[in-house]
């Protein structure tokens, strides 16, 4: 008997040979995701963007955030960030059309992230207000390493792509073919492996700066 058969056989024996009715299992599984508000935290604010930002800047997440009116303002926002920290205007730009289309004059830019890259600029698909998370899908425009190699990660996310809860992201993508990687990123890289004390910049970025573009549909003008 193959290992597969012997394990499945042992599972059946262990469960007393009760067979699963797939339709019943689906119903039961769906019922376990009912009434989600009872099992998840309240948002920090009623407004989604406000809640998202409030979570991003909590000491636990320790990111920084700013808002701009439209994407055309992103290069200027990046320039301000770099200037304030005395960093050179040399950036690795994620090869995403939405970023490449902007006017980056004044920057020295490249689209491959080096192993010791100081600054990378990226674009997230979604933001999550519950946790202050950014969601990326690996694809032709999104190399996964670009999210992990740089020391400073500056990420643009559209206000209208901010979802209330992680569950809303799962619902938004249910039934679609998953990408190789879904990265849900919450703050900078950190470790508590030496005596439990938190240090940022373990292997991934030490600094995460989020630039929120535009307004959420539900937001007052």
């Amino acid at each position, binding site marked *: 008997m193959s290992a597969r058969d012997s394990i499945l056989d042992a599972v059946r024996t262990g469960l007393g040979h009760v067979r699963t009715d797939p339709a019943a299992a689906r119903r039961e599984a769906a019922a*376990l995701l009912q009434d989600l508000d009872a099992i998840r935290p309240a948002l920090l604010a009623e407004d989604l963007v406000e809640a998202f930002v409030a979570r991003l800047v909590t000491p636990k997440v320790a990111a920084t955030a700013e808002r701009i009116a439209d994407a055309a303002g992103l290069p200027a926002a990046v320039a301000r960030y770099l200037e304030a920290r005395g960093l050179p205007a040399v950036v690795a730009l994620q090869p995403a059309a939405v970023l490449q289309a902007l006017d980056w004059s004044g920057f020295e830019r490249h689209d491959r992230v080096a192993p010791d890259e100081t600054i990378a600029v990226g674009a997230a698909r979604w933001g999550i207000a519950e946790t202050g998370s950014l969601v990326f899908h690996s694809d032709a425009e999104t190399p996964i390493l670009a999210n992990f190699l740089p020391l400073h990660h500056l990420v643009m996310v559209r206000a209208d792509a901010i979802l209330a809860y992680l*569950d809303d992201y799962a619902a938004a993508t249910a039934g679609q073919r998953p990408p*190789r990687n*879904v990265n849900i990123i919450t703050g900078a*890289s950190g470790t508590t492996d*030496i005596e*439990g*004390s938190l240090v940022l910049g373990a292997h991934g970025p030490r600094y995460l700066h989020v630039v929120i573009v535009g307004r959420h549909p539900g937001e007052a003008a």
Partner: protein
Amino acid sequence: MEQATLSFKARAERALADPTLKIAIDRTTGTAERKRALAMSQFPQFEAARDRARRIKDHVIANLEHYLLEFERNAIASGAKVYWAATAEEASQIVVRLCKEAGAKRVTRVKSMLGEEIGLPHALDEAGIDRVETDLAEHIVQLGGDRPSHIVWPSMHRTREQVSEMFKRRHRAPHQEETIEAMVDSARRELRDKFLSADVAISGANFLIADSGATCTVTNEGNAELTTTPPRVHIVTAGIEKLVPSMGHAIAMLRVLVRSATGADVTQYTTFHCGPKQAGDRDGPEEFHIVLVDNGRTRMLREGMREMLRCIRCGACMNHCVVFRQLGGHVYGGTYPGPMGAVLTPVFDGLEKSRDLPHACTMNGKCQEVCPVAIPLPTLLRGWRDRSWREGLEPGVVRFGLGVHTFFALRPRLYRLATAMAIRVMRLFSRGGVVRGMPGLGAWTAHREFPAPARRSFMEMYKDQEGGR
């Protein structure tokens, strides 16, 4: 390792005599306990979330065959190859074979307790493959040549001074400044080129998602993604109990897992890995292999330990265990320490070799109270104690002692007479409210006080009351 050949008692005595170990344990578990408490105070939904998490795991276990087959089907459809391993040896052999087929000289590993459980570090070393541990704590464990002592903080037994010394000796460009920040930076420099030059990446999985065939890892350092993206081959090893029906269920589990483990609301990096590199992708492995491991789990189903299969490896039970916090993790002698380890190790190593573990428990119930999936750990430990007795594994002196106790307990008059005499003897040795220097009580009074008996016993007072009616 010489530790492993010593008896549990000898290991415990050695741990208790090590003053740096106690400092190291206190620093990490103390912080973990405080952070969890704070996270709970900010999450009033915890009790409901915990109940839901328990029900999700129970649902999966009750339909395990269904979900295993669904996961396998979807993983294969995503381009992954799926392997099944009944034992630890089979599992590590499959991984080593895949590494050899890939012509691997260097493999990078993401911390996985299942990897430790199946002896993967050792198997890779034996096969002559350069193994690079990328989790900071596992890196420290690898440099120190010892074993993980905690499932979330494997190098918890090391103080910062010890880590500093190791890094200075072994890193190519070690830190100059004696701060934890500088040490972390030293490891960042040391490991960077190794991430990028590995042939094979090996990770575990916190969850297996049945309806997509994806595996999920959670880390705070970002080492999982740096490990699993550059190499040509990514191998995942996971226990068959790691299944959840969908990503939504994984999210519900994550909310209780992370808060229980570190007190954060969510880990910095939560990643779902589904198959190999897709057409157009900028990076990612060309081969994606998943090894599903039984290693005692179906036995647990059969032998009344189904509840233990809910365990999501958060470590809260050990952080809150009075015994673990005195001894640390190495004393337990297995892959998993603390209360959950005392339940699991007899499954893996046999009860004959590990019967001391279920006894190293005060039954204060704290572990069950903090468990995010409400595993009745004290009940399961009592189950092992019971079985150890039934199988005749308890030593003669214990059997004799319990025999004497049973003899008196079954004869109430005799029992009362004997305890009344014992109380009188104890009074003879009482000074200032505590018993001192009484023969036969030394093992107890060497480390703690034994209060002197009250002037009148409960039974005496009870009799008076009854008589007064």
